[in-house]
């Protein structure tokens, strides 16, 4: 959980409190530069592994290998995930040691760096996978399922999984394998309590394996928007 506002700030009630900014809004050039060094593996301080090896400098990820795209996710979201990897709250044998070896500043800066990269365009609508499964996934995303008792994905992630900055990640264009792996992890209790209120664990628990494959295929198939960082916030 996010730390609550320091009490001191509340005690300022009666005068205008200083505005609280979201991470990377706007991205400072210093943070972006520092974040790029981290992405290159040149972050120093015992950094293990270079982000770009799997996620690319452009943050496009590698669909074939199931490495998620980072470009255009919000810095807040990326930072939160890195913190959870580092603490072990989000278990992952590859990411955990990498994140844990970073300093807090490095985790912050690399998050800002990738958030500032424009997401890659994907054409979508290409024949990949079973079209019936794809349609089922689209239906789950758009209206949910009365039978399963799950609400539509787009309630939080936006239509086509465009993402709801800054807390709800963009799903459109992510590798289907990556999305399915996350849903299975939630369903099997492997990501317990790693997000507020267990929203996703609750939803995933109600999905069948077919549902999981369907929504994953769907989000991977949605055309994504190029030339726009984040889900719409960064100029």
């Amino acid at each position, binding site marked *: 959980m996010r730390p609550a*506002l320091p009490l001191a700030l509340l005690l300022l009630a009666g005068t205008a409190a200083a*505005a*609280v900014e979201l991470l990377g809004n706007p991205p400072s050039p210093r943070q972006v530069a520092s974040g790029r060094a981290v992405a290159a593996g040149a972050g120093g301080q015992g950094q293990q592994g270079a982000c770009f090896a799997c996620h690319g400098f452009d943050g496009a990820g590698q669909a074939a290998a199931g490495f998620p795209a980072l470009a255009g996710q919000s810095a807040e979201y990326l930072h939160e995930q890195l913190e959870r990897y580092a603490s072990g709250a989000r278990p992952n044998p590859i990411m955990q040691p990498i994140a844990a070896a970073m300093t807090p500043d490095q985790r912050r800066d690399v998050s800002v760096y990738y958030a500032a990269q424009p997401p890659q365009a994907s054409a979508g609508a290409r024949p990949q996978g079973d079209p019936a499964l794809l349609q089922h996934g689209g239906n789950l995303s758009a209206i949910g399922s009365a039978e399963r008792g799950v609400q539509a994905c787009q309630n939080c992630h*936006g239509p*086509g999984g465009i993402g709801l900055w800054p*807390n709800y990640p963009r799903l459109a264009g992510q590798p289907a394998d990556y999305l399915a792996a996350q849903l299975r992890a939630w369903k099997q209790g492997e990501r317990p309590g790693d997000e507020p209120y267990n929203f996703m664990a609750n939803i995933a628990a109600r999905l069948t394996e077919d549902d999981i494959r369907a929504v994953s295929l769907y989000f991977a198939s949605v*055309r994504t928007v190029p030339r726009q960082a984040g889900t*719409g916030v960064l100029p």
Partner: protein
Amino acid sequence: MTPDLSRRGLLLSSGSLAAVPLTGPTEAQSHDTMPATPMAAPTLWRFFTADQASLVAAMVDRLIPPDAEFTGAVGAGVPQFIDGQLAGAWGSGARLYRLGPFAEGTPEQGYQLPYTPAELYRTSLSLVADWVRGGYGSRFEELDPRLQDEALRSLESGEAGFSELPSDAFFETLLANTVEGFLSDPMYGGNRDMVGWRMVGFPGPYAGYVNLLDRHGLNFNRPPRGIAEALREHAQHHAPTLQR
């Protein structure tokens, strides 16, 4: 009421009463801030006649005028919004109890006129047009903005005594519809480019903030998206033109 002809004469002699184009926010022009917001494309009106549309456009652009940063009601598509509302279910009196007898009633008893919104507009617009022509000697659209405002205030107060209906009933409906058109989802034709939402900082219908509730004082400046916007972004394969 009778318009103040002497004042009007003064204004005329000051030379500020230029011919006002349909969309011309003369006040804004005179402040040298922002070019007139043109109507985007010729509109095929569904309810209004061209004359009515022109009158409504001129009125609503005084109710919410353009300024240096944010366009006004016309630039936001409010006339198109109202046109669509009047041509649709709301205009025809859906969700309005329409049985008589009709009596005047007290203010506390609410709307008691026998008109549907569409009938209210049809009736009122011709009354307004005639009243303005009778009192000011020209069309509302051609009046100096200050006279337009004066005329609107007469409608608002009910001083523009119409025989068929109280002018304030029409004015209040027009004002409410104008605000609706400026701040409702753009899929209804108003709030074009989400200008109303950007102006106040409302992020729109894609909403979910529980993780942010306890970050007090947060500067949250996500640009808004309308109900149909995100799908359009996917489909058209390009980024929205919105600026922060």
